[in-house]
C-alpha cells in the first residue's frame, strides 16, 4: 500500500477527504431544503434512444403538471402550498439504464415520488427499485398488461392496459362498420408493448367474432414488404397493427407501394401523434386508432379545467395538440397532489411517509380532465386505472376525430377505405 511522506496511507487520505467534503456539503443541502421546502418529483423516461419521441411526450405531460401546480403556488397540504421540483433520469430507451436512473433519483436527489417511464419495459425494470426504496411511482404511460401482472406494490398506472383497450376497439370498429367486416389480420412489432397490443387485437378479434386470418410478429428493424404481401394475398377486411410511430408509418407506406388497402386499418399508439399525419399527409387519412383520451372528452377538474383547456395549455406551451400520453402524465401529478393532500404530510417526506403516500395513492378516487381515476386493488390489472373507456378515432382530413365514443364528438366512420390515390 502506498503512503505519503507523513505515513498516511493513500486510502485513509482519500477517505478523510471524502468525509470532509461530505461534511462541508451537507449543511448546504439541508439549508436548501429547510429554506424552501419543496416536493421533489423524479421523472424517469426515454430522453434518448429509439423511444425518444414518446419519452419526450411523457416529460412534457409531467412538466405541464409541475408548471400549472407551481403557478398556483404548489401542492396544497394542510392549508400551505409547497412547490414541486422536478428531477430527470434518462433511461436511454433501455430498461436496465432506467433502473439505474431511478436509483440515482431516489438516492442522490432524494425524490418523494417517481413519475414513470414511457415504455413498459423500463417501467417493469424500475418497479423493483421502487419496492427496494419504498418510493411510490405513478406511471402516465406504460400500457403493457405485464406491468401489472406482478402486482407491483409501489407502482400505479393511469392508462388502462393495452389488452383492454386494443381488444375492445376491434369490436367497436366492427360494430360501426357497414357492411360488417368478417376477417382481420393482425401485425405486432416484436417488442413488449407492441407485441401485447397485437395480442390484444388478436384476442379482441376472437371475442368480436371476427375470423383471424393472420397473426404476424415482425422485428422492429425488418422490411414489412413480405408480411404485407402475405396479408394482401389473404384479402382481410381489416388490418390491425400494434407498434410505435415509425413502424406504423412504414406499414402505410409499404401497403401503398404494394397497392394494398384493406377496408379498415387500425393501429394503436401513434396515430394521434401529429407527426403520424404530418409524415404521411393524405395517406394517413382513414387510419383508425385507439385512445383513452381526446381533447373532446367531457371531463374536467379544478387544476387543469376541461380536457379542451388542457389541450389549449399544451398547444400554447409546446405548439401541438396533446395526445393521451401527455394527458395521462399530467394527471399523474394530479394524483400525487391529491394523495399527499389527503395524507397531510409536508415535504420532505420520510421513508414512513412515502409508504403512507403509497397507501393514499391506492385509495385515489378522482374525477379529472382525463376521466375517472381509481386503481384496481386485485387481479391481473392490480394498481392500473382501468376506468377510462377506449375511444375509437380515425384520421379524417388530416385531423383525428372520435368515431366510436359515447362521450366524444362522434363522426361517421369512413368505411370501407377507398383505393389508394
Amino acid at each position, binding site marked *: 500500500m502506498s503512503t505519503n511522506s507523513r505515513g498516511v496511507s493513500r486510502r485513509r487520505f482519500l477517505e478523510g477527504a471524502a468525509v470532509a467534503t461530505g461534511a462541508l456539503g451537507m449543511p448546504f443541502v439541508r439549508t436548501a431544503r429547510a429554506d424552501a421546502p419543496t416536493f421533489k418529483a423524479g421523472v424517469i423516461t426515454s430522453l*434518448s434512444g429509439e423511444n425518444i419521441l414518446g419519452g419526450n411526450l411523457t416529460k412534457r405531460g409531467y412538466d405541464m403538471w409541475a408548471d400549472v401546480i407551481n403557478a398556483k403556488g404548489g401542492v396544497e397540504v394542510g392549508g400551505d402550498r409547497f412547490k414541486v421540483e422536478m428531477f430527470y433520469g434518462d433511461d436511454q430507451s433501455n430498461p436496465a439504464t432506467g433502473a439505474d436512473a431511478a436509483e440515482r433519483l431516489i438516492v442522490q436527489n432524494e425524490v418523494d415520488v417517481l413519475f414513470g417511464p414511457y415504455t413498459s419495459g423500463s417501467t417493469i425494470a424500475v418497479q423493483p427499485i421502487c419496492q427496494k426504496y419504498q418510493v411510490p411511482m405513478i406511471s402516465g404511460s406504460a400500457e403493457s398488461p405485464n406491468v401489472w401482472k406482478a402486482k407491483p406494490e409501489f407502482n400505479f398506472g393511469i392508462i388502462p392496459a393495452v389488452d383492454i383497450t386494443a381488444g375492445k376497439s376491434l369490436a367497436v370498429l366492427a360494430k360501426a362498420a357497414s357492411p360488417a367486416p368478417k376477417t382481420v389480420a393482425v401485425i405486432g412489432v416484436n417488442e413488449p408493448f407492441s407485441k401485447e397490443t397485437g395480442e390484444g387485437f388478436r384476442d379482441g378479434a376472437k371475442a368480436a367474432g371476427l375470423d383471424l386470418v393472420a397473426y404476424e410478429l415482425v422485428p422492429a428493424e425488418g422490411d414489412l414488404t413480405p408480411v404485407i404481401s402475405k396479408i394482401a394475398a389473404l384479402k382481410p377486411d381489416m388490418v390491425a397493427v400494434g407498434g410505435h410511430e415509425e413502424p406504423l408509418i412504414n406499414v402505410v407506406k409499404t401497403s401503398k407501394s404494394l397497392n394494398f388497402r384493406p377496408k379498415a386499418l387500425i393501429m394503436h399508439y401513434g396515430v394521434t401523434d401529429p407527426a403520424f399525419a404530418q409524415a404521411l*399527409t393524405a395517406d394517413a387519412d382513414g387510419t383508425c386508432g385507439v385512445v383513452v383520451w381526446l381533447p373532446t372528452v367531457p371531463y374536467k377538474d379544478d387544476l387543469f379545467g376541461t380536457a379542451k383547456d388542457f389541450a389549449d395549455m399544451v398547444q400554447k406551451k409546446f405548439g401541438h395538440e396533446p395526445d393521451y400520453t401527455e394527458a395521462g402524465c399530467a394527471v399523474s401529478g394530479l394524483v400525487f397532489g391529491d394523495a399527499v393532500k389527503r395524507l397531510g404530510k409536508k415535504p420532505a417526506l420520510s421513508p414512513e411517509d412515502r409508504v403512507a403516500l403509497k397507501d393514499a395513492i391506492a385509495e385515489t378516487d378522482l374525477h379529472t380532465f382525463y376521466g375517472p381515476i381509481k386503481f384496481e386493488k386485485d387481479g391481473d390489472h392490480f394498481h392500473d386505472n382501468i376506468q377510462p373507456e377506449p375511444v375509437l378515432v380515425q384520421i379524417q382530413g388530416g385531423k383525428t376525430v372520435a368515431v366510436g365514443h359515447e362521450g366524444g364528438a362522434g363522426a361517421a366512420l369512413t368505411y370501407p377505405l377507398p383505393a389508394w390515390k
Partner: protein
Amino acid sequence: MPESGFASILSNKQSEPKNGEQLDLFLQTLINGLLIGGVIATFTIGFQLTFGVLHVIDFAVGGWVVLGGYLAYYISALLKLDGFLAIPVAFLLFGAIGYLIGPILYNVRNSRTARPELMALALTFGLFTLLRGGMLTAWGFNTHSVPTALSGESLTIGPVTVPMIRVAAAVFAIVIAGGLFLFLYRTRYGLAIRATAENRQNAALMGVNIRRLSANVYGLYAGITAMAGVLMAAIFSVNPEVGLRYTLFAFFVAVLAGLGSVGGALVAALMLGTIEAFVSTYVGSSYSLLAIFATLFLVLLVSPRGILKRGL
C-alpha cells in the same frame, strides 16, 4: 398465452392463400426479396470501398444514410420539391464533408499508436454518435417521410405488384456498382485505388498520394451513402435513431460479402434480402433475423473471405 413463432405458423395454415395463389405469392416474395436486397446494397457498396482502401470499418455509415434522408426531407418540406432532387445535392454536399473528414480518418488509421485499427473504429463510432446526437438536437425526434414522384407508385405484372420506388433503389444500386467497377477497372485513378487497397506501401512508392486518395475515397463513399439515404427515407421513413439499423445491415452484408468486396456486396445484399423475404413469408417474420444470422454464421464457417471469396 402469446401466440407467436411456430404457434403463429400453425394458426396461419388455415388461412393460407389457395393453390392458384401460392405461385403468385412465391413470385411476389422473390421480387420483394430481390428489391429489398437492392435497397440494402445501395448503402453497402461505399462501405465496402472505404474498407478496401482505408481499412476502416466505418460505423458512421448509418449516420450518412440518415443525413441524406434529412436533406431530402427538408428539400421536399421546405422547398416543396420532389425528394429525388436531393440525390445530386446529397452527393455533392456530403461528398465534400466526407472529403474533409477522410484525412482525419487516414491519420488515425495510420498513426503510430498501438492498434490504430481500433482507434479508427472508435473514431467512426464517435462520429456516428456525434451525428446522431447532433441530428436529435437540431431536428428533433419526429419520424419524417419523403414524398417523391414514385412514392406509392407500383407496377402490376400479372399477379406481382412491383413498388416502383424500390425498383428505383435497386437500379440505383446496380448503376452505382457498375459505375464503380468501370471507375476502378477502366481508369488510372481506379488503378491507383486498387493498388492502394492491395498494398499501400507499394502504391506510395509508385507515386500515389495515399492521403489525398483516402480523402477522395471517403468523400466518394459519404456522397454515395447519403444518396442512398435519400432513397431510404423515401421508401421507409427517417428519424435520427434509424442510423444504427443501417450500420448493422451494412456490416452484415459486408461480412457476408467479404470485407472490401464491392461486387460481393451486391450479391450478398440480394441474398440477404431474398432470405429475409422468404423466411418472413413462409416461416414467420420473427424468424427473419435469426435466418440472417444463421446465414452469416454458416458463410463465415465455410468461407471466411465471403461468398465470392474476394474479401480481405
